[in-house]
Every structure is written in structure tokens, then in C-alpha cells.
């Protein structure tokens, strides 16, 4: 038997835009469904006094057929001479979004179906957003129901423009736009003579043009331990290789602890399954030379690989499907490959209404079906990658009580407040970057800040007024424009921390918390500065920029050095 390629494609879009019909038609026209199934649909359609309903080939549940909607995702195999397909039909109804995600998360490519007459609708947008969050880049847009708009090229072009403008905001760039009629079978498996202006492929032809992702075999080894078995004399570490490859004799490291050993054997049953090397995707078992205590959740990498993160804090993009809203400071269970740990959302950095793509201002929670950028802190350190570096070890789910309620992808590490430099007095706190060193990275062509003193300074503590790339006088005041606190440095020591309202200008130099000199040299200048600062809208970046350009001097106390 030759190994045939399998491509998993999810079909998404707004309710009633014809996802199931298009798939049903595709299956019907290519004779991919048994006649008995077709007979059954004929019978049901007849009983209901309706024309043959292609969608019923997929919507098997009674409620689905009676209400004409897809409730849950279905998967159907289908083949062309080139390869096999797994077509995943995802529900379009908002309340079944969790089922849509269950279907879409396992797909490599997607068809976004848009009703030609209705254009982009709420779920079209939401689904497109989720595709981008799931990291699915291979997308065709299928403009369905062309028969409803008289197969008009002009209208097709308008819809195409509307959709592409929207999708580009999500960094989703469809490779093709195909005008079809699922109901009539136009441009599904056969070229439509009703749309001679369309020179592209039929849907069936276009499917074969999707290119498969690079396999995970060529990435660094990630072997999360699923379980350790001792059914007989062997102590077998079992699990699935998520990426990379592994062979007997390889030197390995077991994270998060970093214990080092060697692969002694690759275990197998039955005899003819013996393998010398195992690769990504395989569910395997190994024994190792050292009899460490190993457990589920540890991740095996090659000994010299330092690319897997071990941390308890990371930034993530997530979608939330829970019955209850996602809130800060509540304990959830986080599952990332075979690791499980309690976690909290320590900050909700951005919440996006997936329909309008508008940011929800000052969000304190993430509502069901919204997407968000958050910072997550786990109770124990866990191992992970950034999603873009390794999709399987870069994604996780959150469990609220008993339900998997959200999914997310790791976007990067973070520096939490504890890991930055700050001034504190009583309950007042001010994060300062004025002691960070600034380096110009020649290889990257940009300036990077390097926080040298990651510590908290209390009143009375000496502060490092002289650094490699900055120099401050012995006495000065530090103002934080965001939190509107002022710190007083006297003779190289932090002497006080006050609210800006109570601050009295002392005719000493003022710098910002970033270390930029504030151009205030007299009481009058300070009055102007204060007035403008008080009027400044807190989060309006353009006003802040104008303000900073007027009042701040970057180069007075700061410089930067070159690095390689």
C-alpha cells in the first residue's frame, strides 16, 4: 500500500450560508456517499415535501434535519486521485461555536463560506478570527448562492473586496475566491457555464491545490511524557512524539528539572514493530539508562537543546467558550500537552469583540465567544514553546470546573511586575525604566532596553544614578506620567514617593520614569507642564506622543551603546 497524503479541511461560515449543502453536493457529485445514504435523504426530503437536501448527507441528527441547522461538527472522508481529504463541517450558529472550534482546531486548511446575497455576517467574522487564532493560514473563500445574485460578476467582485478588506485586518489572506452555487452544483465538481467570467478552478480542483504543512519531524524534539508503565520488568516511558525525532543512544534532558540521561531502548509490541528511530506523530515507549523517577507532564528534549521555555508566566491569545466569563484571580486548570497545572489570569491585556474586531475598553473579564490577549501565571513552572515555533507545545486549553472552556496559543514570555525595577512607599508603587541600559543591536537594527537592576527600591535605599548608558545628578525628581506618581531622589537615595497632585516643584531636574529629561527649568514652565499633564487623556497615545515630544528630551541623560 502506498502512503496517501491526508489533508484536513474545515468548512466554516455564518449560519445558513450553505456549508453543509456545499459539502453534501461535493460528496454527491463525486459519488463519495453510499446510495443507501442518498436514498435515506431522498425519503426524508420527500416526507417533508422539500427538494433533495444535500445538507442532510451530513446533518444526521434529527434536530439538525428538522431545524435545518448543523449542531455539531461532522467529519467525512473524501478522495481525489491526488490525495485523501477529511472534510470537517462546522456549525455556524453562535451557540454552537464550541463545536465549530472542536472541528476547526484539527484542520490544516479552511473554506470560509459566504452567502453572496447576505455578504459578510457576524459568524463569518468570528469564524475568520478564530481561524487566525488557530493559526490556520490556508484559506479559500467560497462565495455561495451565486444563483441568488444572478451569477453577477460585479456583485461577486464587491463581495470579494468586502471580505478581503476585512480578512486582511486579521492577517488572513485567502489564496482563492470561488463563486459557487451549492444547491445547483455550479463550480463545485463541475465548471459552471452560468459564470463564464470566472476563469479559476472549481472547488474540487482547488482543493488539490492546497499545499500541506511541513511535517513536525524537522523541528526540535518534544516528547511529553504521557505515562510511565511497569507491567513487567521494564520501566517504560510512554507518550507521543510531538515534534522531532529520537533514536536509541540519544542523549536527552527531562524538563522542567533538566535531568540528563540516554535512550536505552525503544519498546514495541508485537515483534515486527521494532524500530530504530521514532519521529513526530508516533505514540511510542522508551526506556532510559538512568532510573529516575519520571512522571506524566515532564517533557523530553535533546540534551543540548535550550529552546524549550520553562517558566510560570506567559502571554497568550485565547478564545473563551465557557459558560461563565473568564475572570482574573480565579483558579483554572491549564492543560498543555500532557502537563496540567493550576493557573490564574494575572492580566487581561486586550479583549476583542470578534464580530466587530473592536477592542473592549478596560475589560475586566472575557465573555463567552470573545477573544483576548492575556497574561497567565501557572502555579508550577511548565514547559512550552511559542506557537509560531511549535504549534503543539505552543497551545493550551483552560478548564473551568469540569469543562474545557477556552483554548489559546502562547505568544511569548513576559516580564511581570516582580521582574521589573520599582520604587515603593506604603501602598504606592512606581515602575521605573530609568535605570535600564539602552543598546543598539547591530544585527537587528534597533534599540533594546536591558533592565539591569530588577529590584524594588524602598525609601532610604541608594539608587544607581550612574549607569553605562545614563547619568543623573545626585538629586532629582522622577515623574511617572501614567500612574501620576513622583519619586524624589536626594543625594543618590530614594527619599519620598508622592502623588503628582501633592508634588511641589523643587527646582531640581525632573526626569520621566523612562529616564528622559523633562524640559522644565522654572516655576512658570512647571505650571504649563502640570496643566498639560493633568489634561492628558490617560490612554490616548497620539496626545501622549505630542506631549512627550514637546516636554521630553531623550538625549540629555541617556545615550546608547552598540552591541553585536
Amino acid at each position, binding site marked *: *500500500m502506498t*502512503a*496517501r497524503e491526508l489533508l484536513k479541511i474545515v468548512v466554516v461560515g455564518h449560519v445558513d450560508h450553505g456549508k453543509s449543502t456545499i459539502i453534501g453536493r461535493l460528496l454527491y457529485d463525486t459519488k463519495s456517499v*453510499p*446510495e*443507501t*445514504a442518498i436514498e*435515506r435523504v431522498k*425519503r426524508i426530503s420527500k416526507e417533508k415535501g422539500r427538494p433533495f437536501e444535500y445538507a442532510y448527507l451530513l446533518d*444526521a*441528527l*434529527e*434536530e439538525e434535519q428538522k431545524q435545518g441547522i448543523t*449542531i*455539531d*461538527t*461532522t*467529519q*467525512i*472522508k473524501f478522495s481525489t486521485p491526488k490525495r*485523501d481529504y*477529511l472534510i470537517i463541517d462546522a456549525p455556524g450558529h453562535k451557540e454552537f461555536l*464550541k*463545536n465549530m*472550534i*472542536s472541528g476547526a*482546531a*484539527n484542520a490544516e486548511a479552511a473554506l470560509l463560506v459566504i452567502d453572496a446575497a447576505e455578504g459578510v455576517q457576524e459568524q463569518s467574522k468570528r469564524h475568520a478570527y478564530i481561524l487566525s487564532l488557530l493559526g490556520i493560514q490556508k484559506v479559500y473563500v467560497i462565495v455561495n448562492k451565486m444563483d441568488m445574485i444572478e451569477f453577477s460578476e460585479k456583485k461577486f467582485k464587491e463581495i470579494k473586496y468586502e471580505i478581503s478588506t476585512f480578512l486582511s485586518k486579521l492577517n488572513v489572506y485567502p489564496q482563492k475566491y470561488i463563486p459557487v452555487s451549492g444547491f445547483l452544483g455550479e463550480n463545485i465538481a463541475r465548471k459552471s457555464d452560468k459564470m463564464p467570467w470566472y476563469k479559476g478552478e472549481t472547488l474540487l480542483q482547488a482543493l488539490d491545490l492546497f499545499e500541506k504543512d511541513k511535517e513536525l519531524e524537522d523541528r526540535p524534539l518534544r516528547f511529553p511524557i*504521557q*505515562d510511565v*508503565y511497569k*507491567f*513487567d520488568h*521494564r520501566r*517504560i516511558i*510512554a*507518550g*507521543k512524539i510531538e515534534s522531532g525525532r529520537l533514536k536509541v543512544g540519544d542523549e536527552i534532558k527531562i524538563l522542567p528539572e533538566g535531568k540528563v540521561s540516554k535512550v536505552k531502548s525503544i*519498546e*514495541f*509490541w*508485537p515483534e515486527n*514493530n521494532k524500530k530504530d528511530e521514532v519521529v513526530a*506523530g*508516533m*505514540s511510542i*515507549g522508551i526506556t532510559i539508562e538512568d532510573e529516575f523517577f519520571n512522571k*506524566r507532564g515532564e517533557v523530553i528534549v535533546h540534551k543540548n537543546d535550550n529552546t524549550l521555555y520553562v517558566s510560570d508566566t506567559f502571554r497568550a491569545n485565547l478564545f473563551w*467558550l465557557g459558560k461563565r466569563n473568564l475572570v482574573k484571580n480565579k483558579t483554572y*486548570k491549564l*492543560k498543555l*500537552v500532557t502537563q496540567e497545572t493550576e493557573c490564574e489570569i494575572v492580566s487581561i491585556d486586550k479583549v476583542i469583540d470578534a464580530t466587530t474586531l473592536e477592542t473592549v475598553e478596560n475589560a475586566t473579564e472575557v465573555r463567552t465567544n470573545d477573544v483576548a490577549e492575556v497574561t497567565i501565571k501557572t502555579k508550577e513552572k511548565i514547559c512550552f514553546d511559542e506557537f509560531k515555533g511549535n504549534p503543539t507545545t505552543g*497551545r*493550551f*486549553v483552560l*478548564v473551568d470546573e*469540569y*469543562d*474545557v472552556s477556552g*483554548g489559546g496559543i502562547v505568544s511569548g514570555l513576559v516580564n511581570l511586575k516582580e521582574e521589573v525595577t520599582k520604587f515603593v512607599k506604603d501602598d504606592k508603587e512606581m515602575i521605573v525604566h530609568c535605570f535600564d541600559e539602552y543598546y543598539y543591536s547591530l544585527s537587528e537594527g534597533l534599540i533594546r532596553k536591558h533592565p539591569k537592576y530588577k529590584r524594588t527600591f524602598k525609601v532610604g535605599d541608594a539608587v544607581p544614578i550612574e549607569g553605562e548608558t545614563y547619568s543623573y545628578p545626585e538629586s532629582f525628581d522622577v515623574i511617572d506620567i501614567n500612574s501620576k506618581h513622583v519619586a524624589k531622589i536626594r543625594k543618590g537615595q530614594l527619599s519620598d514617593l508622592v502623588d503628582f497632585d501633592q508634588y511641589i516643584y523643587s527646582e531640581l531636574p525632573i526626569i520621566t520614569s523612562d529616564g528622559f529629561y523633562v524640559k522644565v527649568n522654572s516655576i512658570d514652565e512647571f505650571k504649563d507642564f502640570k496643566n498639560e499633564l493633568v489634561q492628558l487623556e490617560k490612554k490616548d497615545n497620539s496626545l501622549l506622543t505630542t506631549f512627550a515630544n514637546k516636554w521630553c528630551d531623550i538625549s540629555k541623560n541617556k545615550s546608547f551603546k552598540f552591541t553585536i
Partner: protein
Amino acid sequence: MDHLDRLEAESIYILREAYSKFSKIAMLWSIGKDSTVLLWLVKKAFFGHCPFPLIHIDTTYKIPEMIKYRDKLAKEYNLDLIVHINEEAIKQGMGPEKGRLVCCKALKTDALQQVINKYKFEALILGIRRDEEGSRSKERFFSLRNEDLEWDYTNQPPEFWNQFNTDFPKGSHVRVHPLLSWTEIDIWMYIKRENIPVIDLYFAKNGKRYRSLGCAPCTFPVESNATTIDEIIEELKNTKVNERAGRAQDHEDAYAMQKLRKEGYM
């Protein structure tokens, strides 16, 4: 890795997840081709061992060859086999003549409930596949049942990225379905590749063979001349006949299986 390798790896992963997450777990073995493939995968997942008991729900109406084959394989593989019959229903004369769906409910679903209660199994591994039948196509790999084994198929939790729902309220029961992604042809290709022993009812005699096995009064052979696995695969590539065409209970009602399965049928 080819297509069968990927299916195999996925099923093994799910079996190991189930074994790791539930302390009281068993596998349902119907003696048919799917659950026998599943048994093979269990032995691969656990390196030649089967670390949990197998359950056979005996309706007493099974095709006699199936029972013979069951006992032979159980001995050969040294299996911990639990055979359960709903004795009470049998005593009261339950049989297909009372109505096929009623009979299936009593001798299979209720019998299953009895054995689960008796042994307090938290989870049960089953060899159902999505391509077998419409309501099975909607299943999750880890599928929650309530105390009465009922399945709320309109409100299933999301399941993605190999992250299954493994946290459950007390008293609930979980069905684990490692073979969901397999098709009938995959099963036969795998049987051939692995040389898995299957019962010979599947091979044609006198122009007929069983395509799906069940109880003798309700399961009928389909027309076929396929006497080898290769011929079966070839037949399946060209057939217009549904796999469960020979299963009488499916024809009782357009949504028969959905209704049975909602109540806890396998």
C-alpha cells in the same frame, strides 16, 4: 507515517489518556472487527498487556460462532473477560419479537448499565467509528454520560488539540472512543497489515457474508463473494450498500440509532 500509522498513533494516545485518567475502566468487546482491532491497539499501547478488563454484553441471541471465537481469543490472549447477561430480562422473556428497539434497550443498554453499576466503572472504552452511522459521527473521543448513561448530544463540550475532557462531576460516566476517526476500509486495511485474527463470519460463504455482527435474529448477511481481506477491501471501495444495512434495528425508525444511543446504547 502513512494514514494507518497516524490512525494507530491517535488511538494509542487516546487509550493511554483513558488509562491514565480513570482508575476504574474497562473496554467493551463485541467480538466484531472494530473492537477486535481496538483490542490489538490496546496491546500495542501497553506493550503486549491489556491492563483492564474486557466486557462482553451477551444478549444470548448472539451468533453462536461469535461466542466460540470470544472464548478462544480470551484464552489465547489471557484476557480478564467479564461476560454479562441481563438475566432478569431474559427470564421475563425479552427477545426481538417484543420489538427490536425495546429488545436492544433491555439486553444491551440496560445490561451495560448493570455491569457498570456492579463494577463501578467510571469509564468505558468502545470501538465505535464516525463513519458507521449519523449519530456516531457526532461523537467526542471522551464523551460524558449522566448517571443513567444518557448522552446529551446537543450540548457536548468542545474537544480539540488532543486535550480531552477528563474532569468530571461525581457519578458521571464516560465513554471513550479511540476509533472514531477510522473508516470501515481503514479497519480492514489495518487487519490485513497487522495480520489480526478476525472471526470468519466476515468472509463470504455461498454468496453471502456478514458486514457487521450483532444478534442472530436481527443481523443478516449481505450479498458478497469476498472471501479474502483483499476482496473485502475491493468490495468496500465499490459498494453502494451501507455498512449496517444488515442490522434490522436501524430500520425501525429513521433516527433509531440516535434514540438508542441517547439512552446509552453503544
